[in-house]
């Protein structure tokens, strides 16, 4: 690696465009948001203004957001994301194993089949789920053919979780595949050779050595799930709102931007905590890097 001082002009040409862009369209907006979360709507002529703000004058937004109503939403986001992530892991692991240990000619095809849905718009996929599980959808029609139903399958938490699994499963498959693929087969062979059963080999050798990939996958699924509002909106209905919905609502409908800002930051802190936990785990486990 060269030292930047030896090629000052080249370095600056390369590093500044991205840096400046990130500064203008990410760092500065985020800072504004941070400031706004500590602000309140200004009172102009005795009325609460819709566009002017008194900046940095209150913790009220945060105290409101830690209030019971909103903590419930955050909590709902956390536990639905946790369940969805766990289910994704349980499903994706055997799938990733299947792809990795399939005959070499099949591997790209099988992987592609699992990953392809990822490229389809999240909104479209959620809508597709909605279409087939609604009361007049295909699944209920099938039930009708054998004289059962129709069942109300949407507008509950299970539907939201199913939707989350549906949308984010490919996100779990990729890092798992990547890690398992790099795993040296002879570790598994050695374990079998020394007398361990297939189950024991998985528990004692495969799982510990693929842990970094598992953790990456968990992060890649958990964080988007946490901030989701589409899935809960379309599949869960108003009773299943989580924090993402609340943020969206504050911004687009209730027009209470400072409060929305505070909620956003609560969500971001939750995200960063998850990331820190990941880094701690990654340092402790000794395995194949994803």
């Amino acid at each position, binding site marked *: *690696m060269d*030292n*930047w001082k030896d090629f000052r002009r080249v370095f600056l040409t390369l590093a500044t*465009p*991205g840096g400046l862009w990130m500064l203008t369209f990410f760092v500065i907006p985020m800072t504004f948001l941070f400031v706004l979360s500590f602000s309140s709507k200004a009172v102009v002529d005795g009325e609460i203004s819709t566009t002017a703000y008194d900046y940095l004058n209150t913790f009220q937004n945060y105290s409101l957001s830690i209030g019971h109503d909103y903590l419930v939403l955050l909590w709902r986001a956390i536990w639905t994301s946790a369940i969805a992530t766990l289910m994704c892991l349980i499903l994706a692991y055997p799938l990733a194993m299947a792809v990795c240990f399939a005959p070499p000619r099949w591997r790209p095809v099988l992987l592609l089949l*699992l990953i392809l849905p990822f490229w389809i718009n999240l*909104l479209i996929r959620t809508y597709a789920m909605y*279409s087939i599980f609604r009361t007049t959808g295909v699944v209920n029609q099938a039930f009708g053919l054998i004289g059962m139903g129709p069942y109300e399958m949407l507008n509950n938490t299970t539907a939201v979780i199913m939707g989350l699994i549906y949308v984010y499963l490919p996100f779990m498959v990729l890092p798992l595949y990547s890690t398992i693929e790099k795993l040296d087969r002879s570790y598994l062979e050695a374990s079998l050779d020394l007398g361990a059963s297939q189950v024991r080999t998985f528990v004692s050798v495969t799982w510990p050595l693929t842990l970094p990939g598992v953790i990456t996958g968990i992060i890649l699924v958990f964080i988007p799930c946490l901030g989701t509002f589409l899935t809960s909106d379309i599949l869960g209905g108003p009773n299943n709102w989580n924090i993402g919905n609340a943020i969206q609502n504050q*911004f687009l409908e209730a027009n209470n931007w400072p409060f929305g800002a505070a909620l956003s930051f609560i969500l971001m802190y939750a995200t960063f905590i998850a990331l820190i936990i990941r880094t701690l785990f990654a340092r402790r486990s000794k395995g194949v890097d994803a």
Partner: protein
Amino acid sequence: MSTQLKPGQGPLEYARRPWIIALFALVLLFLYAPIASLIVFSFNVDKSGVWHGFTFMNYIKAWHNEAIFYALTNSLTIAVLSTVVSTVLGATTALALWRFKFPFRDAYEGFMALPIVVPEICMGISLAMFFSYTGMMAGVRDWVWPFNLINIMFAHIAFCFPFVAVVVRARLQGFNRQLEEASKDLGATELQTFINVLVPFMVPSLVAGGLLAFTLSLDDFVITLFSSGPGSITFPVKIYGMVKRGVDMQINAASTVLIVITLAATLLAMKLQAPDKAGH
């Protein structure tokens, strides 16, 4: 437990085990059935959800639906322009990180990763706020097309170029610097070496990164929703509006179109990446 293996089958050939094959098939069914159903019903005569007949009506209606058409054009324009800028920014950032040691390098790298990690909704909100506060939201509304889309483009570039940077950087890791040294040894200048040796090596990743940026931009919903104003609707946002108003087979038709465009771009990206692995 005395499970015997079959002739020719190894103990690690997990892909042959019946329960894994069954699971795989079930998951594929689960993943593709809703999408297949969506596409199939886009050809349905009515929106009841029960199949009543084959027709192209929904596509024709969607095509003539000005709002949908306008939204699709917006999406494609934004995607193309964002892709060009994202690719350049992503490539320069990747080169800077790959080649140079500099103070605050780790922080720079961390910042570049943030858009990938921060929840989309938070980024969308902050941009909405930023555009509103700087007057850009209101200001660009009356600009001539496509400039009224500039907010959305700025937003898209901001979250797309880090992905391009990741792709290009991965490719750069595999570059043999001795090729650069050989070029200079033969008399080329820094710039000539860059153009004739480094850039050709980077091209597959630029294409792959560009296509990634294209699909990310085309598909984006959350960030676009927050950074667009009323006159600058994009395709996914339009579909969202329609979904909120209830099921309509035009949504299916419009979705199918988007799916086809996205898949074509993705498969193209993969095709372009694959031969190079053997070739270079």
